[in-house]
C-alpha cells in the first residue's frame, strides 16, 4: 500500500470517527430532552403555570410560585450583575492596564470557576446569617456572583473586538473619551453584549445549589426581597427527593419547563447574535 492510499484511508477513518462523536453528543442531548418530555409532559397543564402548590395528598395545584420566583431571583440578580459586569468589562477593555487590571481579570476568571454551591455558602454566611433568615436577596446575591464573571468576560472580549479605528474616529471628532465609550464602543458591541447577558441568565437559571440555603423556598408567592422565595430548580429538587408519586410527576414537569426556559433563552441569544 503506498503512502497516498494510506493517507486517504486514514482520512476516511478520522472523518468517520469525528462524525460519529458529534452524532453521539447530539444523541445524548436528544435522549435527555426526549426523556424529560416523556416523563414531564403529562404533568403540564394550565394549573401548573397558574396555581400554588397543594399540600401532600391534595391533588392538583401548580408551581406558579416557583416559576415567578425564578424570574424574580434572576431579575434581582441582574439588577446588580448586569451593570457591574458591563462596567468591569469596560474598565478591563478600555482602561485595563497594569497590575490592578491584571488582578481584576484574574479574580474574575477565578470566579468563573467557583462551584455554584460555594457562592451559595458565601451568600449564606454574609447575608442569611446576619439577617437571621433566608431571603430572595441572599439568593439573588448568590446568583449574581455566578453571572458577574460571565458578563464581565463577554463584555471585555466584545469591546476588544471593536476596532481601535472607531475609537480614534470618534475622538478625532472631538467627542470625549467617556462619550466615545458609551455611544460608539458600547453601541457597536451592543448585540454581542446582550447575547452574553442572556447566556449568563441561561447559565444560572437552572442552578439549584446557590439557592438551597439562601432563597430556600416558599409554598406561597412573595415579592418581598427579605423573605424566602421559591424557585424552579429548588422546588424540583425538593419534589424529586420526596416519597410522593404526585410530586415526582410535578418534578418532571418542572424539569421540562426549566429546560424549555434555558433552551429558549439560548436560542434567542444565538438568533440575536446572528442577526447583527
Amino acid at each position, binding site marked *: 500500500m503506498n503512502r497516498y492510499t494510506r493517507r486517504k484511508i486514514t482520512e476516511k477513518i478520522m472523518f468517520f470517527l469525528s462524525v460519529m462523536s458529534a452524532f453521539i453528543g447530539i444523541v445524548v442531548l436528544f435522549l435527555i430532552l426526549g426523556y424529560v418530555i416523556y416523563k414531564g409532559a403529562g404533568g403540564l397543564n394550565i394549573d401548573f403555570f397558574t396555581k400554588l402548590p397543594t399540600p401532600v395528598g391534595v391533588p392538583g395545584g401548580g408551581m406558579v410560585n416557583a416559576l415567578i420566583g425564578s424570574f424574580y431571583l434572576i431579575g434581582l440578580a441582574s439588577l446588580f450583575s448586569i451593570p457591574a459586569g458591563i462596567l468591569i468589562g469596560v474598565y478591563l477593555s478600555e482602561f485595563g492596564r497594569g497590575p490592578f487590571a491584571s488582578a481584576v481579570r484574574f479574580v474574575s476568571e477565578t470566579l468563573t470557576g467557583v462551584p455554584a454551591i460555594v457562592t451559595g455558602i458565601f451568600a449564606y454566611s454574609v447575608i442569611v446569617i446576619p439577617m437571621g433568615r433566608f431571603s430572595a436577596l441572599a439568593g439573588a446575591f448568590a446568583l449574581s456572583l455566578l453571572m458577574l464573571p460571565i458578563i464581565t468576560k463577554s463584555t471585555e472580549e466584545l469591546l476588544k473586538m471593536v476596532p481601535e479605528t472607531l475609537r480614534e*474616529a470618534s475622538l*478625532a471628532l*472631538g467627542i470625549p473619551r467617556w462619550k466615545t465609550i458609551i455611544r460608539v464602543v458600547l453601541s457597536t458591541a*451592543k448585540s454581542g453584549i446582550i447575547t452574553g447577558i442572556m447566556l449568563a441568565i441561561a447559565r444560572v437559571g437552572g442552578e439549584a445549589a446557590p439557592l438551597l440555603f439562601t432563597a430556600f423556598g416558599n409554598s406561597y408567592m412573595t415579592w418581598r426581597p427579605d423573605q424566602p422565595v421559591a424557585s424552579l430548580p429548588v422546588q424540583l429538587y425538593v419534589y424529586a427527593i420526596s416519597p410522593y408519586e404526585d410530586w415526582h410527576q410535578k418534578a418532571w414537569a418542572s424539569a421540562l419547563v426549566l429546560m424549555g426556559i434555558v433552551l429558549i433563552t439560548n436560542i434567542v441569544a444565538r438568533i440575536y447574535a446572528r442577526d447583527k
Partner: protein
Amino acid sequence: MQEINKEFRVRSSEFGDKAKFIIEGLNAWFGRNQALKNINMSVKQNEVTAIIGPSGCGKSTFVRCLNRLHEEIIGARCEGRVIFDGKDIYDPDVDPVLIRRRIGMVFQKPNPFPAMTVYENVVAGLILEGRKKKSELDEVVEKFLRLAALWDEVKDKLHQSGARLSSGQQQRLCIARTLAVEPDVILFDEPTSALDPISTAKIEELMQGLKKDYTIVIVTHNMQQAARVSGYTGFFLLGELIEFDRTNKIFTNPANRLTEEYVTGRFG
C-alpha cells in the same frame, strides 16, 4: 540635516500671519522608541501641505501630534510646541477635546460607525455633543454630503447602515462627518491608500475644492498624489524632517540628496 532644518526656519517666517501651524522642536515617542526627532515646520493656511516619506518614517505620528491624537495611544507621548492660530495646543490649559473639534481627521481605512446609519454618521460629532437642534440636522446632512460629493449617491440610502456603502463612499462619508463638525483644519492620513483609482480621483478633486475654506495636511505614500494636490511638501525619513519646501521645488529641484533619491523612486 541640521542645516536643512535651519534653512526651513527661514521659510517658516515667510508664511507670516498665514501660518496655521508653527511646529517647534516636536519630539514623539512610542514607549522608548522615538518616532519623531526635533521637527520644525509650518503649515500655511488655506493650502494643502503633503507629508511624504517611506513607511515608518513618522508621517502619521506627525499629523497625529497636530490634533493630540498621538497621546491617546498607551505609552505614547510627545514634547515640543505646536502653535495653532497663535496658541500652543500642548499648553496645560488646553482641552484636547476642543482642539479636535477644530482640527478634524480622516483616516487611512474608512471607519464609519457601523452601528449608525449614513445620516447618523454625518451628524455623529454634532448629536453626540448636542450642538444642533434636531430640525437643523436634515439641512446639515445634505449640506455636508454635497460638500463631500456623496449626496447624489446616497440620498436614497440615508437610513441604511453606513457600513453598507462601498469603501470609496465610506471614505467620503467619513470626510462629510469630519466636515460637519466645522473644523478649520483637516488632517488626511493616507486617505486614499485603501481605495481604487476612481475613488482616489474623487477625493483628490474634493480636496482641491476644500482648500479655499480649510487648511489641509495630507500624509501620502503616493508621490504623484502629493505632487497633484499639494502646494507644500515635507519629506520625512526615520523620524526626521529632511526637507520642507514648495511642492514643485521638492519634486523638481530638491536641496537634499535623500529627498531627490526618494522622489525619483530610488528607495522607499
